């Protein structure tokens, strides 16, 4: 919200974080078991270091700028200047939601409100939960997102102090979506936040959770979020992650989902902001009968980098996963899709379908698509497909022959490309909001809004 003068300091980013941990270890606190986990995580982080482009999963993502900036956690108790009006654009019109707001990774009660929730449903700040019920958390927290081979998860595990805790007990259906809003803001110095979320779905429960990541240019912020989900037997979770940070921000997010028998999870990721945005979704079927829908839309311009990495692990037999990621790349932006489907030895009757489609709008945009199948069982139906291309000139011509000018024609077709993902959003106000967001990012998109 105010100009930030960034001084490029060439320090060893890894050592900075390690030193930071040593000095703030006491403040981070938490129960004894968590302190032990944190220690392990920082040790692991130190051993791993930040990935370079030589690392298979980071080949096309340049972390140089991120590592050059001296990010510091926000100072506790210092006013952040975020008021309710700032958050208005990140809400969904008429949609009634319970809303938890986190500013720079810390719970902001003054901006949050809870509507009445069914009995036993808990939507709370993780920091509070750690204080009040540390032993409830021990069973789940840090149990799903593995930090052994992921430095960013390790970093989050070492440093997180707050985030959202959502628990839906057995057989309970939460009708209204739960909105978790993470705002990043910085003043003079670049700010880092490590929000940590835990979503526990009891057997036969049902809920919709929306995570929004918000920020304002020219704030330089770094969000390193981790969300862990445990979907109990026959539970239904509809999850949306909408990343709308400033184009000066860095966003790295990991989501780990463990699915029990017959559970059904749909996870949608929409990535619009960030100078660098990395989304890693790791899901695992640990019992038969599960189904997963994994959708993603990334839309970039300027010099943005959007990196999507998904890994679907079919450990148990008879599970179905359907994945659709679409990217629209303009300007000098870079898009990466790296999708992996892993079918373990006894995961027979697996059905896995993976689709990645990319639309290049400019001659300087770059996209890398690496779909992957690793299959160790034989009775499976797996396929993946990937396309990269531009708008169909025949389709543009068709529209123009009907009196639509060239720009509008291109806009309509670009919008149509994105809409396949957006249409799968089940919550109507969220869908409408996403529609507007996509349209507003098209060149002179306002006109298109009327055409449609």
């Amino acid at each position: 919200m105010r100009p930030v003068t960034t001084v490029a300091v060439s320090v060893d980013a890894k050592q900075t974080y390690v030193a930071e941990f040593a000095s703030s270890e006491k403040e981070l606190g938490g129960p004894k078991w968590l302190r032990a986990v944190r220690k392990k995580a920082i040790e692991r982080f130190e051993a791993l270091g930040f990935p370079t482009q030589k690392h298979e999963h980071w080949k096309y993502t340049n972390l140089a700028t991120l590592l050059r900036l001296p990010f510091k956690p926000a100072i506790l108790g210092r006013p952040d200047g975020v008021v309710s009006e700032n958050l208005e654009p990140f809400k969904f019109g008429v949609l009634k939601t319970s809303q938890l707001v986190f500013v720079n990774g810390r719970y902001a009660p003054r901006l949050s409100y809870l509507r009445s929730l069914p009995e036993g449903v808990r939507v709370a700040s993780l920091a509070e939960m750690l204080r009040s019920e540390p032993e409830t958390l021990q069973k789940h927290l840090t149990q799903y997102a593995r930090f052994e081979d992921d430095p960013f998860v390790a970093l989050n595990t070492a440093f997180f102090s707050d985030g959202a805790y959502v628990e839906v007990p057995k057989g309970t259906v939460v009708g209204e979506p739960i909105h978790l809003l993470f705002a990043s803001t910085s003043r003079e110095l670049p700010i880092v936040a490590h929000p940590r979320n835990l979503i526990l779905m009891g057997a036969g429960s049902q809920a919709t959770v929306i995570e929004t990541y918000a920020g304002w240019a020219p704030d330089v912020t770094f969000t390193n979020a981790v969300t862990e989900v445990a979907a109990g037997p026959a539970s239904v979770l509809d999850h949306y992650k909408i990343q709308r940070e400033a184009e000066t921000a860095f966003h790295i997010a990991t989501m780990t989902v463990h699915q029990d028998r017959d559970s059904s999870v749909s996870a949608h990721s929409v990535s619009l902001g960030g100078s660098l945005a990395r989304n890693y979704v790791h899901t695992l079927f640990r019992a038969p009968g599960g189904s997963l829908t994994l959708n993603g839309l990334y839309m970039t311009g300027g010099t943005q980098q959007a990196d999507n990495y998904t890994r679907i692990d079919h450990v148990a037999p008879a599970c179905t996963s359907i994945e659709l990621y679409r990217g629209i790349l303009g300007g000098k932006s870079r898009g990466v899709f790296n999708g992996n489907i892993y079918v373990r030895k006894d995961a027979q009757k697996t059905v896995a379908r993976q689709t990645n489609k990319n639309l290049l709008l400019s001659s300087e945009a770059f996209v890398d698509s690496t779909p992957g199948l690793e299959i160790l069982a034989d009775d499976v139906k797996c396929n993946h497909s990937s396309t990269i291309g531009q708008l169909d000139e025949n389709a543009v011509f068709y529209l123009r022959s009907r009196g639509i000018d060239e720009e509008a024609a291109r806009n309509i077709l670009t919008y149509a490309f994105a809409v396949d993902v957006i249409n799968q959003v089940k919550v109507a106000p969220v869908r409408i909001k996403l529609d507007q967001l996509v349209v507003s990012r098209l060149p002179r998109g306002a006109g298109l809004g009327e055409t449609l």
Partner: protein
Amino acid sequence: MVSKSVIQEQMAKQEYKYGFVSDLDEDTAPKGLNEDIVRLISRKKNEPEWFLEWRLRAYRHWLTMKEPKWSNVTYPPINYQDIIYYAAPKPKKPVNSLDDVDPEIRNLYAKLGIPLQEQERLAGVAVDAVLDSVSVATTFKDRLAELGIIFCSFSEAVQEHPDLVRKYLGTVVPFNDNFFAGLNSAVFSDGSFAYVPPGVRCPMELSTYFRINAQDTGQFERTLIIADEGAYVSYLEGCTAPIRDTNQLHAAVVELIALDNAEIKYSTIQNWYPGDKNGKGGIYNFVTKRGKALGANSKVSWTQVETGSAITWKYPSCILQGDNSVGEFYSVALVNNYQQADTGTKMLHIGKNTRSTIISKGISAGYGRNTYRGRVQIHKGATNARNYSQCDSLLIGSTCAAFTFPDIQVQEPTAQMEHEASTSKIGEEQLFYCQARGITPEDATNMIVNGFCKQVFLKLPMEFAVEAQKLIGVSLNLEGTVG
């Protein structure tokens, strides 16, 4: 059938001149690799100074390289000092007649439908595939020469056409390209060379049979094919090796260069010894194959049927440099028992309006691991580049594995590329349908597998297609495993 003595006589007559492994000298170099060995090979081949220089540069660069580890295959570390880099081609333990040949191999050949004479050749009775190359060369050399086509062993090309060799050698696969290409550049002993002059359409298929005979040797051959402006050539390569229980390294390099309006079609049937049922022995087939569609409207087409080798690790690639050039890759890779394959292709689109097609069929059975790995790269400026890739995997049995790792990079908005992959097992309904019509489960499976591969087989020259079909059936060795 030509009697053996006649064959030997022919051999004796032809030695040096046309021999595919052209040096019949008895002495083998000591095991291991150092500059002396490189010099020795060069001296044996009577190579010019520049060629030795090139080998030495390759060797010195190779020393600085590390063996790549990123592939999806596992094998015990190779001791590069335990390989004989230069060996006389004479078999170590000559087999005197077909009766001495392992009945299992004879069965195999009988199933393949290879005639007796050929059986002898393949089983390594006294003579090996060198003969084949010689006879092809002698029979048709005059006719080829009339058209100005040069087709000879690499050693001969170095002696007789040094300008061509010097101009093109290493321009597609430089010695610093990768570890195995570096090794090959330093020590390769022979290979094939073909040059088709401008406007000539080579009237017949050029073909070479590769053999690994001696034990403890590595095979490092090099193939260089140049199609000058408007020329066309189709080249076939067949590979066999006798059964040995130790692993042998085969690190070949193939370079293809197509100038303006030229077309090169390169077909491979690779049936190196795959190791026994327990995965013991077999060939490590680590090959670098690359074609450069250098000129405008040129075309490079790869077709491969990979059924042999303990480990196949290769990516026949196309550099589409000329405008409107075309690259093609058709592949069937079959793994059974403990075989491993990590194969695929690279298509680098540099020129405008370049097009490429990738069709890959992977079949895994037994404990086999089959990986498709491919890269399609569309460089900036390759306007209207077009790629279509399809890679399908078929799984037979629950202990095998299939992997697909395509990588697609596009820096050009006018490019269009599509990739599709699928993995499945043989449909129960299909099997049932065949069986209901009185076809045995084995035949039915065979039929379905062949149908699965048909798209690729159709690209092979006819005789090869028939052989490939039979080879698939034999390699699967379905008796008793299905039904």
